[in-house]
């Protein structure tokens, strides 16, 4: 992975750590998805989505993977 994708994976996992507090994982995933859509630049979103499609989201937490999979770039 490039250093930039490493950064994005770390950012995504940090976000998932917050939303993971919700016992309702559907709410957690939607919360995380919305957060990324509302705060990440398009090129960052494209890169993390590509990381899922090309590298099966290596390094991403399960919640992060679920949430990002719901984003359409």
């Amino acid at each position, binding site marked *: 992975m*490039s*250093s*930039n994708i490493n*950064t994005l994976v770390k*950012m995504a996992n*940090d*976000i998932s*750590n*917050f939303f*993971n*507090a*919700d016992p309702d994982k559907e709410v957690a995933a939607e919360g995380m998805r919305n*957060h990324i859509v*509302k*705060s*990440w*630049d*398009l*090129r*960052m979103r494209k890169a993390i989505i590509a990381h899922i499609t090309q590298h099966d989201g290596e390094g991403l937490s399960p919640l992060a993977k679920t949430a990002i999979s719901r984003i359409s770039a």
Partner: protein
Amino acid sequence: MSIDKQKDYGTPISTSTDMVTLEIDGFKVTAPAGTSVMRAASSIGIEIPKLCATDSVEPFGSCRLCVVQVEGGRGLPASCTTPIWEGMKVVTQNQKLADVRRGVMELYISDHPLDCLTCSANGDCELQDMAGAVGLREVRYRPVATHLNATKDTTNPYFTFDPSKCIVCSRCVRACEETQGTFALTIDGRGFDSKVSAGQNESFMESECVSCGACVQACPTATLMETSVIENGLPEHAIVTTCAYCGVGCSFRAEMKGEQVIRMVPNKDGKANHGHSCVKGRFAFGYATHKDRITKPMIRASIEDAWKEVSWEEAISYAASEMKRIQAKYGKDSIGGITSSRCTNEEVYIMQKLIRAGFGNNNVDTCARVCHSPTGYGLKQTFGESSGTQDFDSVMKSDVILIIGANVTDGHPVFGSQMKKRLRQGAKLIVVDPREIDIVKMPHVEASYHLKLRPSTNVALVNALAHVIVSENLVDEEFVNARCDVASFNKWLTFIADERHSPEATESITGVPAAEMRAAARLYATAENGAIYYGLGVTEHSQGSTTVITIANLAMATGNLGRDGVGVNPLRGQNNVQGSCDMGSFPHEFPGYRHVSDADTHSMFENAWQTNLSNEPGLRIPNMFDAALDNSFMGLYCEGEDIAQSDPDIKHVHAALRAMECVIVQDIFLNETAKFAHVFLPGASFLEKDGTFTNAERRISPVRKVMRPLAGYADWEITQMLSNALGYPMNYTHPSEIMDEIASLTPTFNGVSYEKIDNLGSIQWPCYDEESEGTPIMHTEEFMRNNGKGLFMLTEFVATQERVNGKFPLILTTGRILSQYNVGAQTRRTENNAWHLEDRLEIHSHDAEDRGIKDGDWVGIKSRAGETVLHALVTDRVQPGVVFTTFHFPESGANVITTDNSDWATNCPEYKVTAVQVTKVSQTSEWQEGYRAFSDNQLDLLAQASHG
């Protein structure tokens, strides 16, 4: 324009609502109960002679000049210490009173140098005025001993203490106690030997004096006098403006001689500072005319080249052509801009407008990214608005004050003094901080609890406080049911009641004894009015936003919102952090915190700005750096911000700046970022332009031009020129027009105008319409969320990834100091260096001893990100295992060590937690050697410009 001295009523205003009517010299006067006779007389224009009385401190009754006669009363009471009563009849002037006053003045003058014509206070001396007022014509006394040869104390760089002119009125001593709360001054000795003494008979600089200037302000003679007045004479006109340092936003009178600032005098009518000041705002304004100011635009093709001074037209044209070239080569989103909290609201507004409308993207960010962006996020989510809830004066109604991660007496000293005043009146204090900051224990102030937690464990600690409140039935259910989203509360209740959040379970995480956490929680929850104040010790963590949310949860659960004396109060770092965020300088929000994808808002701005706008969030500052190293972000316009010093993991920042093809810096000095720049646009200091700043209590205050811009243009004019050169027209003729546009497009600013600000002095948003005079306290009826209800959120503690281990066993945390400000670009160019000439590493004596380190030794501080070297300061202010430094000097390289860890929601850097090892060394670090060589070379390239 004139100097128009502010009226002194002699004694403080009474806040009583009971009114009393009396008669003074035959005139009826009605005033609040508790008002002094002196003040009541002054309110109808009868000025009773006085020396020891001034309306900033409580009356003392020592000079006997203000004596009056009261019908039916005995003797001649001092009018300053005599309260009015119903039906009272007072005579302020008759022969008997005149004789007494003249006799008093004779005694004063018999031990006073008669050098009025050459005295620095000539024309501004109350003793001189009173001699005239009482008709003193001769002095019959020839004392055998006097104080006329007493030695001057010139140790303070900003003011001189000349005891030969002292009348021992104690105004300075009382100002130090009551206004500032430092208690550095006293009257030493008795009778003839009485004298004002700093500390234990020390010089002012050796004493605890913090150089706030309150004593100078209170002195009625030339005893305590600004050095600038001694050197230049008295000012001839004054203009009210707002300080450009911290988020308190003190109002000042810039007292001028022509275009020269003679002194900055705190404005008694200032609603944030009530006539008080600190060493920065009061005295450290000399940077504005420092020889390092750059006043000519400059350009260069490469940062290896010498700078070339050019005309404004050429500089702007070059900058615009470079930005266009980069967009043509790398795409529309390949450029962006960074604004600063040091800019005015109007400057920030048109900067983000230029980027959104002129650049065509949303790549705009501000330095709030690295300080209070978690406040914006956390409070928006829970309360519905990205701001604190109270005004500063609210603290005077607080019964329990909970400070979390804020060194209030150093970071926000004027508000710190107000808070200390409330604490001296009896309010209780809880401090949550890894360090023993000053307010934990100082004269007449002592915290009930100092929860000395391990850095990075804020969430665990505040969750534990909330757990106690829930498990001990201390929740304000009435408030929660009426004002909050009950479903979210119930979910939170289940979450926080879990045993894993109990003080006992989290003690091993926080390092704070469970019993202390329980007791502190009870104290806060059972207070009639409990208020929370917090600072960067909350936000600059990987869980910064989570901690802000825990604080909001805590305040809602205890009903401490929506009235005087309570609230959630973020203490903003810089002067215009609140304003720069309000003005839309975050990449995902238009002005007023509305998301760029919100269809109605987006459409409104497109219509107003007459252009297509992106509805995609842009890059945040750290993302800009990453994108630069990926060759997708190649041009930056940076105004008033020094990212090359202030941002974390500085080697990464420098690499990103080197990778960019055009860096435009607009600043007053060749700051660290400008050393990586290709275009330098010389900006204006706060003294050289009009505008507004918004302080930590949402107070919009006027910034007024007191001198012409040294480089010819105010910053808003420069941004406008660049916008026009880029093809997006802007035609403002005055910042008031920019504010009018802000008001027309931002609901919370709809009723704001320069006219209203001028009439009221300042105004706190929200201000929804023309009739509104602002909102001191928010959420009084309902929260600003769509449904009006406060939202509880779940806040799981997640340990930082920045872990200590055998290789990096200590935690470094960073902070600020009273005398220096932020990256130091301003204060390092003033005499404030007399207090703090270098950043030092505070280390506990146990850790120092383990490493053979003595006070003053060079120590290497090594983290996973880098290494730097500082002098050691061995102290027990920090706990074992924790070291601390400030970041005011670029050569210190504090941000060489800090990592790229950041807050999960906002990417605010985790400045407060870096695992390090500290060792004794004999020389500076490799980075520091490299920095010095690079910096020296850049200064040479600058010198070549001025010589070319």
